[in-house]
């Protein structure tokens, strides 16, 4: 009996607890349809093709004259900026007294495969800006772009600087050659022409593959282990499910837009070299001469800081601020850090210029 091995009873206890949590999980988990991701009340004020312009209902009296338009990314949907009342980017800005608009790019279908950068920059974004200018009787708006939405917003701001009073670039995709992420490596070796010619729009399934190669073990295993361990924590489960629902819902990207994206940004890196064309117009980043605020996350594994930062140095603005935060791509916009630090700093900067 001397050789009998002993097992820490806590290990057995942990295994039993974990098994119980897995079995009981369905009791605590809502079905995806039961989770409402549109937290803050808003109205759809303009609809062009599949895109919608959302106007959020003010929470306090509007303190700042210049309205803010958010150009969300092309991957996943704008809901992450309003994912939960306590972590809502939009709600925080409303509480700070800003008038907030959001551009929802919608869900392109096969028919939209010829939509390109020009349609997004000089069509949808320009129409949204014109609508806001008309409604608010102002000549200029403040524009914020997030991730790939910031690339579109950057192109717009360079082409129409007269319409933009302040520009905020949050994790912008700018310098494809300097991007150190796995996504950029895949993009650099992609035959975008063949892809678009054969399948038209970039399907969500391909996006999901790209997500799966980003920290596959942390995101594919550890995240779910943590979820089952915290199944009794209502708040944790609610947050987890909201983000999961958001992650699992990405629209296709129009073929021509995707092709230009891959070739001009990742393969030939034209934007940062002031050689990229949108429609017939050349984008010159020096023409961005209004106050600019750049937000970068040091742990961003989707858009590396090296890819975003060159924008700060390439623009013509004299009044420009670069902020680097100790968080990730999503943490910068939907976390307690974003509520406590990122948004107050941005709000203060914007309020002084609005």
């Amino acid at each position, binding site marked *: 009996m001397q050789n009998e091995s002993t097992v*820490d009873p*806590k*290990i057995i206890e*942990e295994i039993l607890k974990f098994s119980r949590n897995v079995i009981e999980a369905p009791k605590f988990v809502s079905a995806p349809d039961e989770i409402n991701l549109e937290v803050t009340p808003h109205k759809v004020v303009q609809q*062009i*093709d599949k895109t919608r312009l959302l106007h959020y209902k003010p929470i306090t009296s509007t303190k700042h004259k210049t309205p803010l338009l958010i150009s969300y990314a092309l991957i996943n949907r704008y809901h992450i900026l309003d994912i939960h009342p306590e972590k809502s980017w939009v709600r925080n800005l409303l509480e700070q007294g800003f008038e907030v608009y959001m551009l929802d790019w919608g869900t392109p279908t*096969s*028919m*939209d*495969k*010829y*939509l390109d950068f*020009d*349609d997004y920059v*000089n*069509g949808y974004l*320009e*129409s949204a800006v*014109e609508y806001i*200018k*008309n409604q608010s009787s102002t000549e200029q708006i403040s524009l914020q772009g997030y991730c790939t939405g910031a690339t579109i917003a950057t192109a717009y701001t360079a082409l129409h600087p007269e319409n933009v009073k302040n520009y905020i670039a949050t994790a912008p995709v700018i310098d494809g050659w300097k991007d*150190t*992420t*796995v996504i950029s*490596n*895949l993009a*650099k*070796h*992609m*035959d975008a022409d*063949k*892809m678009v010619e*054969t*399948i038209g729009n970039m399907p969500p399934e391909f996006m999901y593959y790209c997500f799966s*190669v980003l*920290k*596959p*073990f*942390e995101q594919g*295993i*550890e995240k779910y*282990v943590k979820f089952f361990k915290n199944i009794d924590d209502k708040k944790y489960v609610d947050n987890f499910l909201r983000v999961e629902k958001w992650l699992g819902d990405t629209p296709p990207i129009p073929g021509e837009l995707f092709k230009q994206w891959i070739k001009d940004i990742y393969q030939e890196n034209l934007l940062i070299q002031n050689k990229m064309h949108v429609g017939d117009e050349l984008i010159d980043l020096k023409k961005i001469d209004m106050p600019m605020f750049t937000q970068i996350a040091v742990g961003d594994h989707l858009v590396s800081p090296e890819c975003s930062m060159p924008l700060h140095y390439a623009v013509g603005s004299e009044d420009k601020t670069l902020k680097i935060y100790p968080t990730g791509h999503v943490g910068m916009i939907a976390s307690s850090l974003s509520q406590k630090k990122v948004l107050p700093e941005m709000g203060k900067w914007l309020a002084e210029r609005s």
Partner: protein
Amino acid sequence: MSSKPQALTSIGPMRAFAANSKKIAVELIEINENLLGFNQYITEYYKQLSETWGVAQKKVNQKAPKIPQDVEQIEAVKRIWIDIFDNDFTELFDSKKFGENYGNLVSKELELTKHWNNITNVILQSVNLPSKEEVDEVYKEIHSLKKRVSKLELELKKEKRKNAK
């Protein structure tokens, strides 16, 4: 299939059938050729994944104690496993050899899809339905018209706004 004796027997619509069968047969032959290339790249893809797995597991074995004795040790082993695997796989996904092979793999997959599309087009045309290319032409035309209308509408709005001042 479109040789003279066959053409002689293929009168009217059946002649088109013979021509279509030939097109489909050619596509199927090319699919088989592409499959060879596809198999080569997919084998390399899984080889890279399994080699990285093997190396990462060896690293974990060297760092972690053989049998975790308590909850804290299990947690520590798990952490080491995840960190090493994430690190090694990210290194792989970030490498030129993975990027190139993956690019070629997707490219071959697209070629297979293209042949499938070509077969579908032959069938669609045989029942008098528009091919993918013809539908694409319509989409292109609609896109171009919508673009022109949107630009004109936007210009009109701007002009109205200017005049209202």
